[in-house]
């Protein structure tokens, strides 16, 4: 009888621990998804700025057709990217293309003095700051979540319940810290 009671108590305690741990992982996974939504909002804001910037520069440097095509292609690829692993390199390409576009724009004094161009540059800088901050929040959440998933005792059963390590969002693909075959975990 005593042995049965001890066994029952052990099972109950283990079950409670499992429930607490499971709920904790769900909460962390939702945080990762939420933070990714934050990044997407800022990335979309940047994508929306691109046509206006291109038009502003085109008015002064219509011959830079190749650059405009490059910016448009990078934007299309970035918009089609799915999850942090794909979005990282695609957004890095957008950053490079935008950098060149702004540099070209700045080489025209009339354009540099244009209020519209200055306002667009300001908005772009602001958006870049927000993207950097959102990335920091997202990567921070991923780190906390991955640590929880990959450490004992969660590592034993987390995979069985569909909790897998998430990808970091890196602007530079080469700097990725935790290569993983999996994408963003499902909510």
């Amino acid at each position, binding site marked *: 009888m005593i042995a049965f009671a001890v066994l029952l108590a052990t099972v109950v305690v283990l079950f409670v621990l499992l429930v607490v741990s499971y709920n904790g992982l769900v909460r962390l996974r939702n*945080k990762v998804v939420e*933070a990714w939504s934050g990044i997407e909002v800022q990335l979309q804001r940047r994508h929306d700025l691109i046509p206006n910037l291109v038009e502003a520069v085109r008015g002064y440097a219509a011959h830079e057709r190749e650059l405009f095509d490059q910016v448009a292609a990078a934007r299309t690829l970035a918009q089609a990217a799915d999850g942090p692993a794909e979005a990282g390199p695609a957004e890095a390409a957008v950053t490079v293309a935008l950098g060149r576009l702004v540099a070209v724009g700045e080489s025209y004094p009339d354009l540099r003095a244009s209020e519209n161009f200055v306002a667009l540059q300001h908005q772009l800088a602001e958006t870049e700051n*927000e993207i950097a901050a959102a990335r920091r*929040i997202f990567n921070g*959440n991923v780190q*906390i979540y991955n640590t929880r998933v990959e450490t004992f005792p969660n590592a034993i059963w987390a995979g069985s319940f569909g909790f897998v390590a998430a990808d970091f969002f890196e602007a530079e693909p080469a700097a990725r810290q935790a290569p993983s075959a999996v994408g963003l975990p499902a909510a």
Partner: protein
Amino acid sequence: MSDSAEGIRLYEAPPRSISLPRGIGLGAQWGSLAFGIALFQGGQSVTRALELGLVVALLGGVLGALVVTVLNRHASDAVTDPFFRAFAAKRGWEYVPVCRPLLDTPLLRDGDERYGRRGFMLPISGLGCALYEHTNRVTSGQGQGESSFVFLVAPLELEGIAPLRVDPRVSSHPSPVRGTEFLELESEELRRRFTVMVSSEADPVRIRSLFSPWFIVQLLKLDKADVYLGSYIEAEGGAVLLGCSGTITPADADTIDATVRLAEPVIEHLKRFSVSAREPMMSR
């Protein structure tokens, strides 16, 4: 206490002192007690004892007054040191050695007694702000004792969000302050370190525009930096408070400079938010 036209002003106050009558009373009391013990051991007559007792009590009172005067003078000298006057003058700030405590937000009103010292009135993002050491004293009940903080108070009204409170997380299941509700932001790091409460009637879009990713990251940075910011943020009425536990000493001159430097972009963000509440179409 705050003045919207000129920003937050700190008003001079007399140095925190021990009351003179209390010193005289305590001196007389201890003098009489010492005399009573001597009498009990010496076996003097009652009349003689009364005469001597009165003299000893008087002497005790005089001694008590003297001790209190010296202590108060010392306390006064300690805060009016020329170091901070020169420090403030060099930066174009105003220095108030002993100031009346501000009372604009709940943390400022906390405690049974409050004192302020080593206050600076300084401009940040074009706003007249105040940075000073604030001490509150709880004289009865639980948590008796004193707590010292350093607060930066800016004249800003966060319409639609206030009352706002950001406090260090001390429990896993805290309770919200009346009229507010907990805000769950996307940063797990922020959630682990702080509880964020905003007005229960706050508009989610306004909340989002204040707590942008950039602002969340700033809050985390302030908490880790060696500055007088980052532990508490409160907004109520026309004032925003940022601060942490601590005191101001001459060794903290660099910390004061770093505080002002790091506060600048945060105050600027809050200012833009405040302006956008009045001009919704101009907000980004």
